[in-house]
């Protein structure tokens, strides 16, 4: 009975995902007839080459990126909330996001030194790749640091605090850097900071898919471990789990998901916090075997809707996706705080 209910919700969400995807692809600042959109989607051909370019090269990759970001951010958030037993945890808490941020800043603001700037330009084709790699390296670096500290700590609370501290240190390093840098470069960096789904194309999309897929597979394989962690570390150990190992696996997965997405799309907030809560109340379960795929669906639907909203039909301007997710996510977080009488009660 309960199982069929959950199956029904999954199927409903899948349909919703399909609809949201089509909606996102159909709406944009340029009006393209719906029939034409579908023809381009299914036959990759249109009489109007501009329309074909827009649907095929702009809207489709953007919608795919939205789906991937929704997958990764929400599952990353879910894992962090379980690992830290804290309803307000998300990848940003671990400092992974700010690590990626630092990586990007180090490339974009490169000391105002024309030498390093020149080096980036000479790389030409790999310009955007360099930023991506830097973000991954930054995320990875912070992850390693947190990992190293976590092996010396046995408490999730300590790790949470350390994650926040590392995040703050990283951000202040960036601020100092920003303060001393060429305003043009800072502007470019700030733009990146807004977060955008529109900059991921072609081979970047392939890499992003691979990174997110790897993170999701690891997450799904550790769903049993995550379930056990719901009872806290002591219980988890008494049931045969090795917390240190589990923590490393979960952190790896989260870093791949959050770092990868931050690298390609910039920091996108609140999805990681809000989606797991929505999903839990929707499915009324704590089982990660169900929550992980369900979070993927809810997260991607939410991201697609945010992206659609960001396009402000009728306007030629697109709002930064970050702003939309914050507008939707922040009230949700407030709701969570108000309605969970005890913040430690979650899961």
């Amino acid at each position, binding site marked *: 009975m309960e199982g069929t209910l959950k199956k029904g919700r999954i199927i409903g969400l899948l349909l919703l995902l399909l609809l949201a995807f089509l909606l996102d692809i159909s709406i944009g600042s340029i009006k393209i007839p719906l029939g034409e959109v579908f023809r381009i989607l299914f036959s990759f051909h249109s009489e109007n080459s501009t329309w074909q370019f827009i649907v095929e090269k702009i809207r489709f990759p953007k919608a795919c990126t939205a789906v991937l970001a929704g997958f990764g951010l929400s599952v990353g958030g879910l894992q962090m909330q379980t690992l830290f037993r804290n309803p307000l945890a998300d990848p940003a808490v671990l400092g992974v996001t700010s690590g990626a941020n630092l990586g990007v800043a180090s490339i974009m603001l490169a000391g105002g030194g024309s030498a390093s700037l020149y080096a980036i330009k000479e790389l030409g084709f790999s310009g955007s790749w360099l930023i991506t790699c830097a973000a991954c390296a930054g995320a990875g670096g912070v992850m390693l640091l947190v990992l190293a500290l976590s092996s010396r700590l046995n408490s999730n609370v300590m790790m949470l605090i350390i994650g926040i501290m590392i995040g703050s240190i990283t951000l202040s390093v960036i601020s100092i850097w920003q303060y001393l840098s060429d305003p043009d470069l800072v502007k470019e960096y700030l733009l990146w900071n807004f977060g955008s789904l529109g900059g991921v194309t072609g081979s970047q999309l392939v890499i992003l898919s691979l990174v997110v897929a790897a993170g999701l597979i690891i997450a799904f394989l550790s769903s*049993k471990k995550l*379930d056990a962690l719901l*009872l*806290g570390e002591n*219980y988890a150990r*008494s*049931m*045969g789990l090795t917390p240190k190992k589990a923590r490393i696996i979960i952190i790896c997965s989260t870093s791949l998901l959050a770092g990868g997405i931050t690298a390609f799309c910039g920091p996108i907030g609140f999805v990681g916090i809000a989606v797991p809560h929505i999903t839990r109340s929707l499915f009324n379960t*704590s089982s990660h075997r169900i929550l992980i795929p369900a979070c993927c669906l809810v997260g991607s639907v939410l991201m697609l809707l945010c992206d659609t909203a960001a396009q402000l039909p009728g306007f030629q301007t697109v709002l930064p996706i970050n702003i939309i997710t914050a507008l939707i996510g922040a009230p949700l977080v407030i709701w969570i705080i108000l309605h969970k009488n005890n913040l430690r*009660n979650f899961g």
Partner: protein
Amino acid sequence: MSSDLTLLHTRDLQTGYLSGSRRTVITQGPLDLEILAGQLICLLGPNGAGKSTLLRTLAGLQPALQGSIEIEGEATKRLTPVQLAKKVSLVLTDRVASSNLTVYSLVALGRYPYSSWLGLLSEADKSVIEWAVSMTGIESLIDRKMHTLSDGENQKVMLARALAQDTPILMLDEPTAHLDLPSRIQLMRLLHRLARQTHKGILLSTHELDLALQVAGEVWLLQPGGQLHRGAPEDLVLNGVFEEAFVKDGVLYDKAAGAFIIHSDNTVPITLTGSGVAAFWTQRALQRQGFVVNTPGDSLHTVHVSEEGGVIRWRLEGKDQTQIYGSIGTLLNVLRFREK
């Protein structure tokens, strides 16, 4: 003394913490302990004596400073976490902070060491869960969310989870803390029954001396210095170990009553005559009021309790007057007035 019934035994065990090169010894070794099948052991001791450390060490949650622990003939050091999880299950003081978890899925988590990599439950798993649920009598709770449970219900559910883990040994860390009296008694009775019916070895730490003395087959009494006394509870009472263990700022153990004496700083002597239930309760009331009852020497007052035809009377004899009262309350009021 090792036999087929021995589930766990330790050799030269010393517990404590090791941080860096610093050893903080909690229990003085060498401890040679045993848990037998079907035995309910209560681990008693004042706060800070190291009850939790010993329990955690025996459960394999923290390493022993010295010595070895064998469970069913295998050293716990050599067991993998999953193997160990099939031998010892735990009920801890940790709150489960997961409001969305239903009672059933929490109990089902007990099958963790047995279920598939995805955590899918087999029919066999499900029947063990059902058994655990019926043993603890929580059938009516299984669809409830964990955060809606009372403390007593919560402990029963955690116990069911430990039972679902299907281990020969069950350890509980202060399971009766935070519970009201009826729940405490219920839980202790349940554990007593479990030990007899399932032949599990159950070790629990508790402060409930009275209850422990009633249900425990064996008591391990930890003293602040780290010494551990073990034996049948009655033996420990008779040989004075209890008294010795709890002597601390006027806390005395009354062997005769099998209870702690709270009012040990009383000074005013009083004589009480009479017998039966009424005399017992009168003595308690007088002690609370600050009197030392029936000590040799002069006393200002004598209280005589008598019962005739179901009516109880208290006669208070002072230096120059004698009065009769109909309740302990009025008697106490008069004594209080006279003292001033």
